[in-house]
């Protein structure tokens, strides 16, 4: 019997198509920016990845609230899956930022507000995952990690507003409600940035659902082992 295509497969096909389209737009279609030259194209990678990393911690926080409220495993699984994908996005946000900073600012890193708060977000993710890895499994681990996730999410608005609050080397916000009109991108550049953001959002969702499946399988193994142990004790 022919296997039906499920939503995960469709998501992967859509993500792959968007990925190809975005790469084409970035390298073949969008005009080169006057001030920074070609290196400015890193924007179409850096900003969507940063968006993904912030979306990750928001999902962790939202799922944590839902877990603390409903005490259902699905919310805990979603939080940990989102945190793991978030740490990948967070690491890549820092990496792409560092690579971009070198030719534009002549330094790899500066201790300014936007960069420091982004680094803190990465450490929040790492702390969350380390806590999950080393604390004994059980309801207490899930409860405490939910609290860590919630506290960590406080960093998100600080990152978003940092460049506007403390005007330093990092350019002011170019998207969202507090975007600076003077620094807003032109229509072509803005279109490509939007396309890239949509692509990375789909990639984020795809990776989270893959990680969620892994988490579900891990839980299933723990339950199977537990039930086997109970059966053996009963014997």
């Amino acid at each position, binding site marked *: 019997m022919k296997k039906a295509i499920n939503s995960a497969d469709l998501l992967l096909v859509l993500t792959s198509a968007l990925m*190809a389209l975005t*790469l084409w737009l970035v*390298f073949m279609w969008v005009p080169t920016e006057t001030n920074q030259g*070609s290196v400015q*194209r890193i924007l179409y990678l850096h900003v969507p990845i940063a968006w993904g990393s912030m979306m990750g911690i928001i999902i962790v926080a939202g799922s944590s609230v839902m877990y603390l409220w409903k005490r259902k495993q699905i919310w805990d699984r979603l939080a940990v899956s989102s945190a793991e994908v978030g740490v990948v996005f967070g690491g*890549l946000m820092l990496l792409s930022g560092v690579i971009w900073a070198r030719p534009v600012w002549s330094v790899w890193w500066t201790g300014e507000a936007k960069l420091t708060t982004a680094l803190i977000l990465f450490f929040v993710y790492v702390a969350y995952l380390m806590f999950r890895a080393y604390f004994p499994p059980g309801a207490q681990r899930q409860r405490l990690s939910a609290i860590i996730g919630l506290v960590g999410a406080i960093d998100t608005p600080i990152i978003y507003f940092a460049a506007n609050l403390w005007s330093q080397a990092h350019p002011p916000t170019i998207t969202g409600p507090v975007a600076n009109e003077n620094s807003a991108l032109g229509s072509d550049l803005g279109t490509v940035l939007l396309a890239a953001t949509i692509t990375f959002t789909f990639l984020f969702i795809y990776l989270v659902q893959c990680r969620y499946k892994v988490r579900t399988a891990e839980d299933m*193994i723990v339950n199977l082992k537990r039930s086997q142990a109970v059966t053996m004790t009963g014997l």
Partner: protein
Amino acid sequence: MGPLNKICLALCILITPVVIFTGSLRVAHAQSDLILSGIIVGVETDEEERLTKFAISDSSGVVTSFEVASTTQYGLENQAGDRWVSNQLDDPVEAARRLRDHRRRFAPVTVSISDGVANSVVERYEGKLETNLGYLFSAFTVTWALFFGYVFYISRKQRVLHHEIARLKNSSE
């Protein structure tokens, strides 16, 4: 991982480096316009004070003059570091004023030229444009390599876990 997933991932892995590589080559080709940095030594305007021509002196003292076209773009900073971005069509008078300001301050600019016409006049780049392409290429390559690596890590973990579940189910029967 189903066959469709495998096909999609294989296509992505094949297409992504090709697009990044050919794209970087295309960008490099687009940047193959002559690029010159130096100090502004002359600014010519018409009777309405619109910029028509300017000249720069490079580090070896060679003076080169350039025509401007309606498409010529500007990205020039004032003494306070505020950047003015415009083009010849929109504000030729301000362009002349900015270039004169640069001449007065001996502030270096970078000009990209094709067929004797300036395509862009911007603050002098800190590094070489050719070197910057390396940064662009590395940023995209490293990012996509890590994403694909992570997808492989997850799919491998998924396979191991499914085997483990099957083994546990068999042993409990």
